[in-house]
Structures are given as structure tokens and as C-alpha cells.
């Protein structure tokens, strides 16, 4: 029992719920953890001893599992979300959120010796330590020890939602008192360090980096501590270049650093992605698929992409869609040649075999259509256009506007055509055909499930 409580941080959750005085708690679990949902609820209820608090379990999310599903929770008027499992940490929702990471067991001693073997001759090397959410619980202690041997090893911090941190702070402090003096001091230091880092430092991929400028990154050896199949690592590697990453997977039996490029066919992936970018250059009608629940940020990107597409004399259409799935995009196959998905920073769709049209991320479309850019071999999954970029495009568009007035008119007509076509396509419910069918006696129809009706027999 204790183990279970620890694994799902029941005490921490209870405290968090109580601090926020929440009455409608949403539990969001990925499919892998859904089996534990009722048990978690039971344990929480038992610990809270408050009948007024009701729990809702989100069995299917309207977003990717790494994102916090504020839409679904709003449907049941939830006032607090507990998100379990791996998170992309990209939510900026106003509602209190608690991220519960399911910790993996790691051996600090083994990790340290792995570090010592790998960097035995380069103890003063500039390094930045990234880690997966699963090792968040033990990272502080580990870093403290590592830092003794490797003075230039800097760590990143998880950029957890604000509302949570403030409230948990006190809790943590209380816990600290019970601990040894030295450790307390260290924690204090760490906190100071973190706070300082947060003020001016770079925040990216749900992490606070120990640097202020992205260009400083290349001077450091980047280290990933966590599973080598973690999607965050994949996004980081695409954005910062896989060749800069060394990976240490603590779950492996024998701990050893591996080069990121060796472990994943990153080259092949990039070549595949660039093939899609090439295709984007030739496509005419582009669908901008909005797949997150982060409207403020998204609108800016949508605006930029629309301008970019217009500037390239192509047509765009905005589609809002929770989780991006091939079946959903399949509805637009006839009208659009290409989709660009605005989602969290882990929303790059790698296996496109089920999609009939290329599905890109905004940065890839920018690479394809923005002639000022030169490819450096990375794909920025944290692509975010600033105001200058938008203003620049608007200026360009204005300049060319006078020259191609007639062309624009043609384009408008085509745009209208797309719109009218899609209008006829919208769902109007089942066909009623009132008065069109002859009046007949009731016949017995199909019964059973659609996958196999009762009267169906196998043809073979």
C-alpha cells in the first residue's frame, strides 16, 4: 500500500487539493496508467476524508496525453487537474495543475560511476544536464554529488506550472526540516539557484536552462538522463542537433553513455523530414491544424503561417482539431495537399504511413516557404514567431500586393471555392429523407455490433 501511495504521490496530491480548496478534481491518466485510476481515486478519497470533493477520471483525452486536457475538464467544471505520467510541460492553463511523474528507480551510485568513466579525463568540461520527468524525484541529490566532481556541469530545472510551485513550496520546506542540516542547506541553495535561473534564463521544452541565450548551448556538451525513447529527448535532439547529445539511460542494466545519433536513426529521420519539406514547396493548398488548447500562443503562430502561405502564393485553411489523427485529416484529403500541425513541442508525427498527405510542424513549413532561411540540420519544435517576423511578412505582402492585384483576385475566388466546398461537407446529422421514402411495414434490421452483425457469416 505504501509503495502505491509513494508511486502516485498520494500525500502530495492530497495536500495540493486541500491547499487549492478544490471540489471537482480531474484525474488525467494516459492509457498505460488507466488501470490504476479507480485505485488512485479510492486512495485519495480515503486520505481526504471529504465527501464534498468529487473526482473525474479522463479516460480519453481530447489532446495528446502529454498535454493537460483543459477542454475536457472544463466540460465537467473541474477546478483542478492532476496529470499523471509523462508530460511535455507546455501547458499555460489558468487552472491549478499538479504533475505526478511516475518515478523510476535509479541507482545514484551507478550513474555517478558512469559519469566518472565517460568524463574521466574531462572533469572540467562544460556540460548541461537534461533529465526526464521520471527522475525528477532524485535529481537534486544526484546533481549535488555530481557537481562535486564535475564543477562545470550545470543542470536544468523542470518548468512546472507556477500555481503548483508556490503552494508546494511550503510543504517542501516542512519536509526539509526533518532532514539533515547539510541537505537542507543544499536545498536552499538549489532553490536560490533555481529562482535566480528562472528570472532571466531560457525556458524551453518545459525546462529552465542554465543559460540566457540559445547560442551558448553549442558550447556545452548536452547530457540526457532518462529513457532513450523519451519523446522529450527526441524533440530536444531535433531542435538542438542530435550530435550534441550524450544519453544515459538509468533503466538499463549496465549504465553507459551513448551517442544520440547512434541510438536513433536521426539522420534518416531528418532526411525523411526534409523530403516532406521539399513536398511542401510544391503544395498548393495547406491546412493549418490547430491541435492544442493554448489559444494565445497558437493564434500568433496561425497568423504567421497564414501570412507565410499567402506570401508564397498558396492557399491556407485553418482547422481546429484536438488530437490529430489520420482518420480526421482524411476528411480533408480532397481539398488540401499538406497539413501543418500546431501542437505541443512533442507533436511531430514521425510515422506518416497512415496519413495521405504530409503532416509538418510549423518550423518545417517555415523552412520550406521562407526563402531567407538556410537549413542548419535541425528542426525547431519550439518554433515561435515574434512580432518582427510577422511585421516583416506583412510588409512584404503589401509590397507585392499592388503588383499582383489581379492574381490576388483569382486567388480569392479559389479560396472562396474551398470554403464553399467545405461548407457543404459539414455534418448535418443522419439523412432524414422525410417524405421521400414509401410507407412500408417495419422490417427487421441488422442487430449486433457493427464489427460483426449477428446475421453475418464468414464468406470463406
Amino acid at each position: 500500500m505504501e509503495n502505491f501511495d509513494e508511486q502516485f504521490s498520494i500525500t502530495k496530491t492530497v495536500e495540493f487539493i486541500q491547499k487549492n480548496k478544490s471540489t471537482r478534481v480531474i484525474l488525467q491518466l494516459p492509457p498505460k496508467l488507466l488501470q490504476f485510476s479507480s485505485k488512485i481515486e479510492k486512495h485519495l478519497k480515503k486520505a481526504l476524508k471529504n465527501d464534498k470533493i468529487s473526482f473525474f477520471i479522463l479516460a480519453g483525452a481530447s489532446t495528446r496525453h502529454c498535454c493537460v486536457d483543459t477542454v475536457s475538464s472544463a466540460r465537467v467544471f473541474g477546478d483542478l487537474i492532476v496529470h499523471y505520467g509523462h508530460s511535455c510541460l507546455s501547458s499555460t492553463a489558468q487552472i491549478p495543475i499538479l504533475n505526478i511523474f511516475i518515478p523510476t528507480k535509479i541507482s545514484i551510485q551507478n550513474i555517478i560511476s558512469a559519469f566518472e568513466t565517460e568524463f574521466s579525463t574531462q572533469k572540467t568540461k562544460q556540460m548541461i544536464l537534461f533529465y526526464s520527468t521520471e527522475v525528477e524525484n532524485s535529481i537534486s541529490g544526484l546533481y549535488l554529488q555530481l557537481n562535486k566532481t564535475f564543477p562545470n556541469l550545470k543542470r536544468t530545472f523542470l518548468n512546472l506550472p507556477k500555481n503548483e510551485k508556490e503552494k508546494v513550496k511550503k510543504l517542501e520546506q516542512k519536509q526539509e526540516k526533518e532532514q539533515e542540516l547539510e541537505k537542507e542547506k543544499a536545498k536552499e541553495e538549489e532553490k536560490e539557484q533555481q529562482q535566480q535561473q528562472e528570472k532571466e534564463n531560457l525556458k524551453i521544452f518545459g525546462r529552465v536552462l542554465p543559460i540566457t541565450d540559445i547560442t551558448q548551448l553549442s558550447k556545452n556538451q548536452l547530457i540526457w538522463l532518462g529513457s532513450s525513447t523519451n519523446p522529450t529527448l527526441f524533440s530536444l535532439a531535433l531542435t538542438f542537433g542530435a550530435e550534441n547529445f550524450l544519453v544515459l539511460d538509468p533503466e538499463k542494466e549496465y549504465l553507459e553513455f551513448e551517442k544520440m545519433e547512434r541510438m536513433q536513426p536521426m539522420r534518416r529521420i531528418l532526411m525523411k523530414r526534409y523530403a516532406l519539406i521539399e513536398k511542401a514547396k510544391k503544395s498548393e493548398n495547406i491546412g493549418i491544424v490547430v491541435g492544442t488548447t493554448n489559444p494565445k500562443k497558437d493564434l500568433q503562430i496561425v497568423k504567421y503561417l497564414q501570412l507565410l502561405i499567402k506570401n508564397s502564393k498558396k492557399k491556407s485553411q485553418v482547422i481546429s482539431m484536438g488530437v490529430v489523427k489520420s482518420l480526421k485529416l482524411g476528411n480533408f484529403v480532397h481539398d488540401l495537399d499538406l497539413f501543418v500541425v500546431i501542437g505541443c513541442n512533442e507533436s511531430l508525427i514521425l510515422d506518416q504511413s497512415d496519413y495521405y498527405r504530409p503532416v509538418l510542424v510549423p518550423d518545417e513549413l517555415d523552412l520550406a516557404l521562407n526563402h531567407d532561411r538556410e537549413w542548419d540540420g535541425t528542426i525547431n519544435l519550439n518554433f515561435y514567431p515574434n512580432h518582427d517576423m510577422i511585421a516583416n511578412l506583412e510588409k512584404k505582402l503589401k509590397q507585392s500586393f499592388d503588383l499582383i492585384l489581379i492574381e490576388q483576385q483569382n486567388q480569392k475566388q479559389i479560396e472562396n471555392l474551398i470554403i464553399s466546398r467545405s461548407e457543404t461537407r459539414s455534418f448535418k446529422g443522419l439523412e432524414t429523407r422525410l417524405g421521400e421514402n414509401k410507407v412500408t411495414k417495419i422490417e427487421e434490421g441488422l442487430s449486433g455490433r457493427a464489427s460483426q452483425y449477428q446475421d453475418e457469416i464468414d464468406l470463406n
Partner: protein
Amino acid sequence: MSKYSLEKILELMNHPSNIRNISVIAHVDHGKTTLTDSMVSKAGIISTKLAGEKRVMDTRKDEQLRCITIKSTAISLYYELDEQSLPQDSDGNSFLINLIDSPGHVDFSSEVTAALRVSDGALVVVDCVSGAFVQTETVLNQALSERVKPVLMINKVDRAILELQLEPEEIYQQFVKVIESINVIISSYEDEYLGDIIIGPTKSNVAFGAGKQGWSFTLNQFAEMYAKKWNMPKEKILKRLWGDNFWDPKRKKWVKTKKDKEGNVLERGFCKYVIGPICQLFKLVNQKEKNEKALNKLLNGIGVKLTNEEREEESKELLVTIMKKFLPAADALIEMIIYHLPSPKVAQRYRVQNLYAGDQNDECAQAIANCDPDGPVMMYVSKMIPTKKKGRFYAFGRVFSGTIKSGQKVTILGQNYSAEFPKKDRFITKVQNTVLMMGNKIEPLIKCCCGNMIGLVGVDDYLVKTGTITTHENAYPFKQMSFTVSPVVRIAIKPKKIQNLPKLIEGMQKLEKADSCVKCLIDEKSGEYIIAGAGELHLEICLKDLKDDYCKGIEIISSDPVVSFSETVTQESSQVCLAKSANNHNRLFVKAYPLEEGIINTIEKVNKDQKIYSTNNFLNTLTTKYSWDKKFVKKIWAFGPEQTGPNLLIDTTKGIQYLNEIKSACSAGFQSFTGVGVLCNEPVRGVKIEIKDVKLHADSIHRGENQVIPMAINSFYASELTAKPRLMEPIFLCEISVPKYISGQVYNLLNQKRGIVLSEIPKEGSNLVIIKSDLPIIESFGFNADLRSATQGKAFEQCVFDHWEVVEEDPLKEGTRANKWMKETRVRKGLEPVPFPLEHYHDKL
């Protein structure tokens, strides 16, 4: 010798009746480029001394190094003839020959195709010792189908005399054989517009000579010489100099039999008066010390004067000097070209039907037929030639009508333009410059009149490889060229530094533009960047071009060459295959069947020739020749892949509601299925899918494309898996010429390489045999080197893609070769090594 003068060329360009546009075509190593040298030297561009060695028309470094022509090169040559006997419709005594030297290696056949399109005549060169080869036949066939008139040059006669030490009569027999073999091909083309094109020495459209030594002759020249000497009419002598005409010295009379009444062997006219004296000369020069007197007498007789310096030359050099003076190669060739090949004015009248896609009576067609310099501009761009400036191209082609000027506004109709979609691939732009191609140099022009070959500057951005350039608003494009080689060998390339990928793609696009037979593909499914070409040599050259030119400064990693496979089925599906849509509301029941080889070929032929599929014709063939049910023939839904491939989707259901609504979705699924088969994502070939039954949801929203397409693909994959799927491998037709005594080595090697010998034909007049065989392309990599080492370099091979052959082994059974290939292909594409089992695609009810 006339001096090279640009002004004269420019002036002549305005007189189409004094222009000849010709291509030099032949098998590899039969001496085209060397022969061309003599003509270039005659025009005053290089010195006589260098002719035969310089290879002016091989403008690239690698061409010079390998002594092989890779790209065709054009040059304009100016000649003056004697005033006395000019061709009928000529206009003055000066002539312009626009000549294209084409490559002979089969891997570069597409260059020949492009060259012939803009030529009216072809100079066919054949090595007199080895005779006509496959490639000779291929290029000659191409020429005739383009309505290009041939003349023949029998080359390397020096080899017959010096190397093989043949007697005059044997040489004569050798010549007869070569001429006959060419005439066999020509006579199979009966074309009323081309008229009588059978060749023969008495017609003076055959020349004999040795390009390397710089000499050649036609019988006409000898006849003229003897006519002067004997004071007899030339025509009379000409007849005696060929065929069964023998000189009886006793009775001083020409007879038709080999022996006289007493049984003495008589000498043939050709041997006595033509080749005999030449052989005699060769012999005397070779032992000049012994025969000085006799030699001097002979030289006097043929009117060759030597300087003292020249007399001191080694016999080998001396022979060349004498022969160049006695029978300069260019004279015979120029005479043959000017008298026996048509001017644009003549040729365009009958070629227009083969060239112009629009109505033969419209303004453009008329202007082409009349070669009208005042008509609308109609120019066909047949190839793109890289300029010195990196990444830009000259659009090389021929002006068929009108006059094109620098700075003129023109309409460009690209390869994908068709009158049905007039906005697609049609551009209007200005011609920056017009230039004349002179080997590796260019000369700027102000304007160019119809009937000439020129290069355009500033239109390369609008053209992929070929296209039509016109000033007429409603002009139709020129017909597409059909290439005889297909790109079946491929290599995957990648940059060493991933950042250079965009530059690599740019380079690939340029490469594709410069070579009409290269296909550059980007496979987004596997992330492979592929160059596909005709053969190993071709790819080697492409890669070199890419590394040294189009992608200079980028390190490129290339894979070993691999072949593309096809997938097919060999049996009717063992069961009806069912797939359900994702929402479970729709079902599709299908079966796969193998298509007959004849039907596959018909589809491919029809679609290659016409591009737009003419259904009626094909459907009639299906019902009459293959006795298909008319009902089903009408319900062919799709061809695939790319709407034209050799696979059929047929609806065999009856009375299904809403069926028409899913037709396009099924067709889309079919395209996807035929493009990437279930075994290893290779194209499908020769499969017929019959839709047996369909169940659809009554509501249209539930049977949308997103539901139907995946369902269709799954059912097609399932049907392929249940119909004994097999791989197909591409097969080369391989022709090897090798001395008889080591042909055993070749047989051994072919055996090792799974080659199947089709025929072995001895080449008469030599110790060579020609072995024709089917050679799997996958085994052909490195075959060239193996062959050389097995035969001490005495064997020569040429390989050209011939057909696809089913690999009998089950690719899904472990341990077979087909299984190995399938796995290799899958792994290369980044797929799991084994395809999904049937259950993955086939749903149960």
C-alpha cells in the same frame, strides 16, 4: 581548306536549303568522334594534323580520359563545294552542316534520341570488322521512327587490311555483309514519305574509310577519277565498281561471272580498281625501303605529292599522311551528307506529322512544313546543356519555323502541358540570348532562322528537360520523345553533413535537367534520395557530375547500386479478402488475379506512346484478343500506379447502392497499393484486382474517403498476400563480343551470374562470336570487370534493360533468395524485415 569564319556561318543560317542537320550515330567504339574530327578540321576549326586524335567533340574531361562520348555535342560547320554539280534545290555553293556527335554506349541512348529529334539525317558509322551491333540497330531504328534519313559510313577499313590481312575479295564480302545488315533494318520501315532509303555503294550513300587515319571515299569519287583517266562517262564506271562485275583482261571486257571460260579466276571491279590499289599502297608503304620505286610510281598515279620531310616519316605516319592527301575523309563525308541527306526545307515537309501534336492544317503545322522563316516561331528544346555559369543551362533545340531573336517574348510549353489544361506548365517569358553551339564554345547570335540548331539563354527555369517554344498563341506542343532506355539501376545518396541536404536536392534537380534519362527521386517514406539511371556506367558519370559540378564542395556518400524490384501475383487469390473501414460500417470484398503478359505490354506500350490513355482501343483488344467479358471491361475503374501503370482495378459487383461514390476513393487506394506493394514497398506489376462485393453505410458521412481509402488498401494488400505474391527482377539483354577461343570463359561467367544464353552467332570475317544472353541486373554489378579479367580484356559487353522476370521462389519463405532480397529492400527502406501477416490486413467477419 576553307577557313573558319563565323560571318559566313551566320549568313548561311538564313538559307535553309543549304543547311543539313545531321547526327552521327553508331555502336560504342565504332569511331564516331574520331571521324567527326576530320570534318571539323576540314571546316578549318582544328588542323589536319590533329584530326583523328583530338576528339574535339568530347568536350568533357572525363570523356577525353575515357575516350568515350557521354553527352552529345553540336557544332556548325561551313563548307564550299565546286560550282559544277550542286544539288538541285541549293542556293549557292556554300553549305552549313549542323552536326551532332552522339554517344554510342547504350547507357546514354537518351542522348541519341534527343539528337535525332533535331536532325534530318543520320550518319551511321559501322566498324567494318565487327559489323553492326545491337546498339547500331537500336539507334538506326530510332532514327527511322523519327523519319531521319540514314547514310552509312563503313569505318576502320585499316583494321581489315592491316590487322586481319584480308584479301580484297574478303574485304568486299565483309562490306556486303555490313551493308546488308543495315538494309535489313531499313527495309522493315516502309515509309512512303521518306521514299527509297535503301543504301548501296552505287547510290553513293555509302562511304568506306578509316577515321583514325583520316581517309574515306565513296565509289563516286573513284568513278570520277577513272572517268577522267579513261575518258568514259562516270555513270557507266560507277555501275562496274560494285556487285558482280568482273574484268576479263584477255577479252578486255566486263563480265558477270567469277571465272572466264578457261576457268581462270577473274578480279571483281571493286577489288581491282578500288580496294586493290589501296591494299597495294598499304603494303608498299609498310615496306617502303624495299619498294621505293613502286611507291613513287603509285603516288604519281594517284596524284599525291609529298614534301621531303614527309618522305622521311615512319611508315605508319607516312601512310596516314598519304591517305589523308589521297582520300581526305571529310570530302567523301561532306559530299555524301550534302547530296544524300535532306535540307530542313525538304525534311520538315514530311517530318511535321511525326513532330507536331496539333492539327496538321493549322498555322503552326503549315509553317513547320514549309520551313517558313516568316511564320510563327516553333522551336523544340530537346535537351539542356550546362553552361559555364554554375547551375544554369542552355536550352538546346531546333527552330522548325519562324525566326527567333534575342529579347523576344515567347511562350514556353513544358513537358506536362496539354491543350486540355492550358494553364498548366505554360509560361511566357523573354529569351535573353540566342547562341550557336560550337563544340565546347558558344557564339552569340542576334537572331536565328528556322532550320537551325541553337541554344537559348534564360528559359531554363521554365523547362524541366524538354519543351516547345513558340510565339503563336494557340500553338500545340511538339510530340514527346519516347526513350528506349529505362532507369532501372539506382543508387541512394546522402550528404555527409546533414545541413547540406538542401544543396544536394538542388544538385539533383540540376542533374535531372541535364540528362534526359536520369530520374532523381526523393522517397519520403524511407527517407532515401535516389538517382536512377540506365546502368552502372551511367550512374557513375551522374555521380561524378554531381560531386564535381552540381554539388561542388559537398561531401556525398553514395550507396552501392541496387536494382528496383516489382511485385506481382502468380495465382488467383485463395480466398475472398475482406477489409472493414475503421468505423466498421463498410466492407470491401476483393480478389487478386495475375494479368496476362500481353495485356501488361499493351498497357505499357499504349500509355508510353500516347500518355493520355485511349480507352476504347484497349478495351476492344481486351474483348477480342483476350476474350474478356464485355460487362467487366466496361467497369475498369483504374490503372495504377500513377493512373497509367500495368495493373487493373475492376468492379464485378451488381446493383450496389452508392458504389459510384466510393469509386474515386478506391482508385486512390489502388494507386497507393500499386505504388508500394505489400512485400517490400516496390511497385506492383501485372495484377488485376476484382471487387467482388461491397457493403456501405447508408449515410454518406460514414462512408467518406477517410473510411474507404484505408479499407481499400488493406483489402488489396490482403488479396496480394493470398495470391502467391512473387518478386520480379529486372533483366538485362546482354550482348558480348569475344574471340571464339575464349568464349568458354564467358559461358562460365554467365553461368555464375545466372545468365541465360540466348544465342551465339559467329561474326563472319573475324574470329569473334556474339553471345546474346539474359542477365539479371542484380548480378550485373561488377560484371564488366569480371568479364575483363576472365578474358584478359578481350571481351566487350553491352547491357540494356529488357524485361521483368518473376522470381519463382516464395519471398515469404525463410531461406530463399527472394526472401533475402525482400528483407534487404525492406531494411534499406527502414521497414521491419518481415511484412505483416495476412491477419493484419484481412478482417474476419
